[in-house]
């Protein structure tokens, strides 16, 4: 089947061009193969990035394209980095990132450790557990709004059933204290399987003979866990933590649909602030500076992440 298509392509290609392609050197071919990807990324990612850097030094507003653009120098950066509200948005992000990572790592690692007991049917149940992370955070996040509805929502009902709090008082999304936890719960529900899957790979990469040697030395289970299991799985755990850290630092879709940053600005994580500034207040120059700040933060983490990836790859 494939062979036939190849023949057709060869036949369909006009003779001189076909000759040209046939005669192409390996080096030429390499660039011919790689350059379309590089060009696309330059056009869709790198060019816009430099545009954003330029805009971040101006007072440009996308809703007033005809106004004279003034160069502000570093003023946008100074304002953002001295702004109390944005600092608070960062703390909201930090709260979200910290708790989601902590919960996901603890639960994810525990689940992986239990699955590694190889009980009967573990493959099937693992697949079931993995389902939430493959789904659209926006579409599922939107549905969680329904589960969180006071009284009629399943989540609120179960909470009030278990704790005895009147069902109308379980206001997960409109209570200032509870809303940050509402988004943490959904994120943990969604992404614990991700951490679990990577931890499982880490646990399974530990060679059996190390445990056998430990058995010979009569090391207790507790000791084996702390001196073999955990350190050997650590590069994998780091990989999962870094990736979830990056993803949750820039989290937008799920939070936007669950709370939209509210009530007030209690769940306004950095990406939500950025969206409000850029696409609601149309302060394009100012929000570009903010975008660059977030980008540098993510890029720093991404560098460390790729290092960690390579470390795991060499295992």
């Amino acid at each position, binding site marked *: 089947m494939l062979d036939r298509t190849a023949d057709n392509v060869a036949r369909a290609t006009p003779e001189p061009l076909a000759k040209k392609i046939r005669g192409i050197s*390996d080096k030429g071919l390499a660039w011919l193969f790689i350059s379309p990807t590089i060009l696309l990324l330059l056009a869709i990612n790198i*060019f816009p*990035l430099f545009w954003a850097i330029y805009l971040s030094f101006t007072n440009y507003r996308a809703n007033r394209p005809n106004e004279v653009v003034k160069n502000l120098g570093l003023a946008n950066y100074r304002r953002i980095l001295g702004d109390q509200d944005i600092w608070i948005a960062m703390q909201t992000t930090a709260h979200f990132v910290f708790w989601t990572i902590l919960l996901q790592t603890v639960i994810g690692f525990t689940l992986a450790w239990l699955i590694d007991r190889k009980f009967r049917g573990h493959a099937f149940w693992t697949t079931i557990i993995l389902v*939430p992370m493959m789904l659209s955070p926006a579409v*599922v996040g939107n*549905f969680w709004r329904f589960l969180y509805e006071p009284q*009629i929502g*399943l989540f609120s009902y179960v909470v009030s059933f278990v704790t005895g709090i009147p069902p109308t008082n379980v206001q997960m999304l409109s209570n200032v204290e509870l809303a940050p936890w509402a988004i943490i719960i959904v994120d943990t529900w969604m992404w614990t399987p991700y951490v679990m899957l990577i931890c499982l790979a880490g646990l399974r990469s530990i060679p059996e003979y190390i*445990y056998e040697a430990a058995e010979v030395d009569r090391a207790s289970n507790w000791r084996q866990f702390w001196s073999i299991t955990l350190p050997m799985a650590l590069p994998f755990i780091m990989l999962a933590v870094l990736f979830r850290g990056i993803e949750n630092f820039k989290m937008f879709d799920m939070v*936007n649909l669950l709370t939209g940053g509210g009530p007030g600005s209690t769940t306004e994580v950095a990406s939500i602030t950025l969206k409000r500034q850029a696409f609601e207040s149309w302060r394009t120059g100012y929000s570009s500076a903010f975008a660059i700040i977030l980008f540098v933060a993510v890029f720093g983490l991404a560098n460390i992440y790729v290092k960690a990836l390579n470390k795991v790859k060499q295992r």
Partner: protein
Amino acid sequence: MSLTTAHSVVAPSSNAKLIAGTIIIAYALISIVPLLWIFATSFKTPPDSIAYPPKVVFQPSIEGYCNLFTTRTRQTPEYINALGPATGFCDETVRKRNMVIAGPSNFLPRFVNSLIIAFGSTFCAVFLGTLSAYGFSRFKVPLADDLLFFILSTRFMPPIAVAIPIYLMYRELGLSDTALGMILLYTAVNVSLAVWLLKGFIDEIPREYEEAAMIDGYTRLQAFWRTVLPQATTGIAATAIFCLIFAWNEYAFAALLTSGTAQTAPPFIPTIIGEGGQDWPAVAAGTTIFLVPILVFTILLRKQLLRGITFGAVRK
């Protein structure tokens, strides 16, 4: 490594297995409840869906699906009685609520947009990705590591940060709210994953095959086409599914850069409203239809999942 083989722990006792199994099954069941609830809600009538306490046992109805695909207007009973007999189940159900079907809703076009954009961008990303992956895998490319890092790093850009200049750029180029613009954007995001994953898959194909083919008189290009591509089919298929899932699920770009003609399903589904707030059975119906393909793909992909989410770093 597939999920079925495990080896690391020295013979766990049957008691340990029992406890582990119980906890895992309990977690799996609890974590799947929200999804089952979406599925159940899609078959409830609107009053059933907002009943207190939440109804677990109910009379199934496809009213949610009817409402998802139609727009309705409220009419007086006299008006409805004057109409001819109902033409179908949906018509009948809607009339019971003193409404008439006014026309099709936007769900179907939005769903089709999702299909076009997801498949279009997946095709482009896998096509470009296969070429680049082969280039990086088989040839000495100067600065290969830097280029590969550059390709991967583009995936980490915060979507909102990218969306600001892209919004301006697309406005200039006339690409705002077009399927072409979205396909280009998703291709750019997906190509990084495609290159990294496919490079791993192609690295695993022994070079000897191509070399043998080239000795037989094939050119490099023919050897690539006839020996490497057929052997990389599994890898290409897995990569394609990963790209498809990303493009299918994406929300941030779609919400900020599309508003009408090119809008995909994720930003549309939350806007489905009935009388007095969200029409939850219709939302659940849309969500169900939207999620089912992903469920199928997840099951197909389960052996490659680990590889996909670690950009090919963890192979087994």
